[in-house]
């Protein structure tokens, strides 16, 4: 390792490593089961008690004011330790940046703390049955009433919703406006009157996402996030988080590539050698690309449509790495276990957070500057 770190950064790494070694519970039951969700919430509480749940946040909200570099260091250590995936991810990575950027002081007080220790687990309610890739065509409505709004309609594919507490999402508040305008961002409880959550089993058999039905659900004005009619703008300011750095830290893929090497060593099959090496190269490229991004951002740069380049890479890498693992396992690849679980999850990568076709459109148009249209 020749990427150089300061003494303080090395100390931070060591502190994280030691804390994780002492507290990491290892693999927990799937967070998309009642038992697993409870165990994952418990883990979030433990993380928060060590102030490791949101390291980059201000100390006032339970963070450590850590730099981006320290965040990546922490994530490297986290996955190296084999610590559990985070049930709080939607809240911490997708919602919190919006609350920090667009929320009121009251919203910060009300929601940020409870997000850091698993007290409030959030679900993202963007997609609808008729609005997937074409998200701006969404139809769920918000109608203004005394003191707030009434939500109606249906959302779908909301990850974590079966065991979550609250949701965040876009509703059409002005049906007469142009389709990207007239949308407003709302926060709402999943147990409110008029909300029905219907879990949907995913390919792996667990209810990893859900449909959410809204029947005249009242939401006070306080739970409008950002301005009325500004929902699209606010939402797009975090779409990049989902595709880019924040959800997919490189540590995760480096750890998976490492386990793939274990598998190879246990039974080296010459015809799969190149695929094993390519998985390692892919993870290494992702790690280094991330350091390039961190360097760029810390020097004052920003990440825009490049988040789509990132998403294409990690989703393809994740899938091909797991396909290689199954090839190595041979006939045993059909047997339930971690490789099959992770493989099934990797299958969804090219679909969620905007499909890879949509990401390619973004790269072609906004990074390469090719003409729009021709859909």
């Amino acid at each position: 390792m020749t990427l150089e770190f300061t003494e303080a950064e090395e100390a931070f790494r060591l502190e994280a490593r030691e804390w994780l070694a002492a507290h990491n519970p290892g693999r927990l039951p799937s967070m998309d089961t009642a038992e697993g969700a409870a165990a994952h919430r418990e883990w979030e509480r433990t993380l928060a008690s060590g102030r490791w749940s949101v390291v980059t946040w201000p100390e006032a909200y339970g963070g450590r004011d850590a730099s981006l570099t320290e965040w990546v260091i922490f994530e490297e250590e986290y996955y190296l330790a084999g610590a559990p995936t985070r049930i709080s991810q939607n809240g911490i990575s997708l919602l919190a940046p919006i609350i920090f950027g667009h929320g009121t002081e009251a919203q910060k007080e009300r929601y940020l703390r409870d997000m850091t220790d698993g007290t409030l687990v959030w679900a993202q309610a963007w997609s609808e049955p008729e609005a997937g890739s074409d998200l701006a065509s969404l139809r769920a409505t918000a109608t203004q009433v005394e003191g707030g709004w009434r939500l109606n309609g249906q959302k779908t594919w909301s990850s974590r919703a079966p065991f979550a507490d609250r949701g965040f999402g876009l509703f059409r508040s002005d049906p007469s406006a142009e389709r990207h305008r007239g949308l407003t961002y709302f926060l709402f409880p999943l147990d409110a009157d008029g909300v029905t959550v219907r879990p949907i089993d995913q390919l792996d058999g667990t209810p990893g996402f859900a449909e959410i039905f809204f029947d005249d659900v009242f939401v006070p004005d306080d739970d409008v996030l950002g301005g009325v009619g500004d929902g699209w703008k606010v939402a797009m300011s975090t779409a990049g988080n989902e595709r880019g750095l924040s959800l997919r830290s490189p540590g995760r893929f480096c750890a998976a590539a490492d386990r793939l090497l274990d598998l190879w060593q246990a039974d080296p099959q010459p015809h799969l050698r190149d695929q094993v090496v390519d998985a390692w190269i892919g993870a290494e490229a992702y790690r280094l690309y991330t350091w390039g991004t961190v360097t760029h951002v810390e020097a004052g740069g920003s990440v825009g449509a490049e988040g789509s380049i990132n998403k294409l890479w990690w989703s393809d890498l994740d899938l091909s790495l797991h396909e290689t693992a199954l090839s190595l396992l041979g006939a045993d690849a059909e047997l339930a276990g971690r490789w099959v679980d992770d493989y099934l999850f990797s299958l969804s990568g090219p679909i969620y957070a905007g499909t890879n076709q949509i990401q390619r459109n973004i790269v072609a148009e906004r990074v390469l500057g090719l003409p729009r249209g021709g859909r």
Partner: protein
Amino acid sequence: MRFGRTPEQHAFSEALDDLLGAADVPAASRAWATGDHSAGLKLWQRLAELGVTGLLVSEEDGGLSASAVDLTVAFERLGYHGVPGPWIESVAVAPRLLPGTPDAELLARLASGEALVSVAPGTRALDADVAERTYALGATLRRAEPGAERTSVDPTRRLFEVTAGEEIATIDPAPALDFGTLACSAQLLGAGLRLLDDSVAYVKQRTQFGRPIGEFQAVKHLLADVRVALDFAAPLVHNAAVELDAEAPTAARAVSAAKVATGDAAYLASRTALQVHGAIGYTREFDLSLWILKVRALVGAWGTPAEHRARILESLVEAR
């Protein structure tokens, strides 16, 4: 700067672009392919004035004692502009081979751009006909006699069989080979970037069915994939250079990863460039051919992808 180029390196890259963008490099390449070296050697001199030929030569010998990262900055641009000649051999490899040998006296003239040398990492040496001296690099360093010419898929690469002669030094060839491989990776990356740029420009301007073909999603998605592949190959090249500079124990593995990734990405760029250009891309006359053929040749030069993958796996397994 934790992991990126310095402002000086950006400026160096731009200076090379200014020089090479104004020169007619394709014409020099086409002449080089026929054995007419005059335009190519003129370019050699002008690049020498910018310091390219002296990058790895020590300051005492009139060079710049520059870093491997600087070397990759230069070779990426040489690849981008398709500059012909034994650049890897003279600029990236020889300065790592000759110090301490009886031929060290060549270093100053290498740095100034007066002398060109060729080095055969296997049985063939590139452009031995313009090289003042040719070496064979095996377990030891030997002078070599160029023999029969062999035709490369890339006509600007003039290859000669060599017969190894007198041994001039007992050396470990590995570090010099790694520098050659690194330079080759950077050249591949540059060639890939050029193929992508030319493709993007072409699909914006070529119309079919009443629209620029760059509006068609099938075309867009091909080019987006090239961009992704190149963007993720680049940090591997940078890292390999950083590790070579630091003499990190994993440097050889990092070099191999860079070679595999840049070979794959540049090859994808060349296949895609050919496809989106249609038949015009399949002609020798059109300059795109210079890069398409160069990439095919460089993918197998300085270690094949299979050899480098094997080396990576060996190192990973050893480290456990």
